[in-house]
């Protein structure tokens, strides 16, 4: 069984640079005896192989040849030398929406573009329902694309590409689009595709995303493969070569804290007034113990979802028992933009016991969380549960509100960043001074030589 899906063998690409376009004509007329161009090698001797279901990350600075490589693999550019073989069809998110016609509706465009890419009409008909649901743009799906916002456009395009289920998917920076909820959806979909044996090539500056999705990565520099290895090694090689610090994604939009009431935060009415829960978020659970409202403030009591790195937010959760609850518990889940669970804990994990609640009783719980995490956007969910019969780590979910937020963690410091990586772990530093060996009679060099 040959499970190599993509095989690239010493691929090179040369662009000819002419100072005047007509010099090309002169060159043709001289049958190549005279040369009027300069060569620019965008890719030099690239070779790699990809197995089925593998995801290869391609990292490199701008102009390193990432896009040229992907364009050659999707057959929109021709290589100068070298060969490549791809089993099955290949689709590129480079093409994200380029084939769309502005006058046609989203639905019509999906049919049209997929035909253009060589998929039969029936193939799309089977999937159009799923595409529509995934894109989640409501009635805009049947309106002309020219009325779309740029976010909707991207949603439509991404939905189309993932549901066409190519054997090889090429992604070029495309996952940094849309809002955080859609991004999480995209990452989840990408993982699902990878696990169902779609092979993937992923070019990005987003090293965190590469480490997250890929099993292997290559570092492309000046058109050559500088390093190939695990994503972690490759990323660190990339940074060491560039000599730059990991760039931190800034907040997309900063909203100023609005409320200055610092008192009475725990009052039921205050929480209801400043409730962040609404019916547009997904919600599930058995409903015995409900989270009926929640409020998020900074440590000054101002309503906000923006927090500086290493500072904290207070989550006030208003619980209401619809039936008697013997061992109530409430907690929070925090997800990053790729949909990874960063942190989840509640009263039970912190060994904090909430009182028995009678039917109709209410309770306010404050969760104070310090955001020792990378700057960026996070979503969260709030829930209420009870221990289940199945064991200490499985809760019986009474109520859970999902996809809340986003919380924006910002970094205003310009100096050395307090930590690198996903989160800051507790770390202690101690220092011991050592007496110089020259003066230490026991291990000094003189003694050693005598022995």
């Amino acid at each position, binding site marked *: 069984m040959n499970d190599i899906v993509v095989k690239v063998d010493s691929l090179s690409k040369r662009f000819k640079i002419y100072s005047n376009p007509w010099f*090309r004509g002169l060159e043709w007329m001289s049958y190549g005896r005279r040369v009027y161009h300069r060569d620019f090698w965008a890719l030099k001797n690239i070779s790699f192989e990809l197995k089925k279901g593998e995801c290869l990350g391609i990292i490199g600075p701008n102009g390193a040849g990432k896009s040229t490589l992907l364009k050659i693999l999707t057959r929109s550019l*021709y290589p100068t030398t070298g060969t490549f073989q791809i089993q099955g069809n290949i689709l590129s998110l480079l093409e994200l929406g380029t084939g769309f016609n502005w006058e046609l509706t989203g639905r019509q465009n999906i049919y049209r573009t997929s035909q253009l890419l060589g998929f039969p009409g029936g193939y799309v008909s089977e999937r159009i329902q799923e595409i529509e649901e995934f894109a989640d743009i409501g009635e805009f799906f049947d309106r002309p694309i020219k009325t779309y916002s740029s976010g909707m456009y991207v949603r439509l395009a991404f939905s189309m590409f993932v549901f066409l289920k190519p054997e090889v998917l090429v992604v070029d920076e495309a996952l940094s689009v849309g809002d955080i909820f859609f991004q999480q959806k995209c990452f989840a979909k990408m993982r699902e595709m990878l696990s169902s044996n779609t092979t993937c090539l992923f070019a990005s500056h987003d090293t965190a995303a590469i480490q997250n999705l890929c099993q292997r990565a290559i570092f492309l520099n000046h058109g050559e493969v500088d390093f190939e290895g695990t994503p972690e090694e490759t990323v660190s090689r990339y940074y060491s070569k560039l000599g730059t610090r990991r760039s931190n994604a800034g907040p997309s939009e900063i909203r100023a804290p609005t409320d200055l009431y610092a008192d009475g935060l725990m009052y039921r009415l205050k929480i209801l007034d400043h409730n962040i829960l609404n019916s547009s978020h997904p919600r599930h659970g058995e409903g015995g113990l409900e989270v009926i409202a929640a409020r998020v403030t900074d440590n000054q009591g101002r309503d906000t979802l923006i927090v500086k790195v290493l500072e904290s937010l207070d989550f006030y959760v208003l619980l209401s028992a619809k039936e008697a609850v013997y061992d109530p518990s409430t907690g929070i889940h925090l997800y990053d933009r790729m949909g990874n669970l960063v942190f989840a804990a509640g009263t039970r994990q912190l060994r904090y016991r909430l009182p028995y609640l009678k039917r109709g009783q209410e309770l306010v719980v404050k969760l104070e969380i310090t955001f020792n995490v990378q700057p960026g956007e996070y979503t969260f969910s709030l829930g209420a549960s009870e221990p289940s019969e199945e064991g200490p780590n499985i809760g019986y979910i009474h109520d859970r509100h999902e996809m809340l937020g986003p919380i924006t963690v910002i970094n205003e410091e310009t100096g050395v960043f307090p930590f690198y990586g996903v989160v800051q772990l507790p770390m202690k530093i101690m220092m011991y001074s050592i007496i110089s060996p020259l003066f230490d009679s026991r291990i000094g060099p003189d003694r050693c030589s005598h022995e």
Partner: protein
Amino acid sequence: MIRVLYHHRKYILQNAWSDLRYRYAGSGMGVIWNVLSPFAQILVFAVVFTRIMAIKLPGLTSEFAFPLYLCSGFLPWIAFSECVGRGANSFLENAQYLKKMPIPEQVFVAQTAMSATMSLFISLVLLFLLALIMGSWPTWLWLLLPLIAILFQGFGFGLGLLFSSLNVFFRDIGQLLVILLQIWMWMTPIVYPETILPEVFRVTMKFNPAYPFIHAIQEMFLYGRPPVGWMWCAMAGWAFGVPALAYLVLRKLRPEIRDVL
């Protein structure tokens, strides 16, 4: 090449049609402008040539003969020159698709040619109606007209394909073509009858590639005379030879076309 075009037939047809529909998008009359502008030009020529310059067609006395003569030559010419002129720019216009998607290049030229052909057929239908109203009786020969029109468009597609490949590298070609097409039109008996030309020109006319097509259509439409043997040969030669040549050129240049877009 034919296989590739057949494979993308739906895309070509749809795009050609939406091209016609949306070229005048936003204007009140929309699609109608496609047909209206050539007819307006014909009207101007008709007035200038019959009223001011008083040109008569040999053997025809009807007052409507000259306008019909104009239409029968001018409408195919418009479509042909669109094939060549717009076709030559089609790679540049669709650079965004070509740069990112693995679509064969010739599809875009075919799309332009198809939209020109569609608008030609709409015009021809109108022309037939006009002819009926003006009292010409349809003959079986009229059925040959679409065939000749298609051959003519095939020739136009070939030239468009040839120049579009070259235009990518030498962008002056597109501009040059606009002028050349103008000159070519006036060197072909379209808006004036062949008979007003001196004998010298009439002999050289056989070397004008557009002449057999235009002449065949005019002859059939006005006099009911089918094209003679040499004209069929010439038409078929141009209509198949030029696209074949253009395809060879494209195949040679293909690896570099997308590099310079």
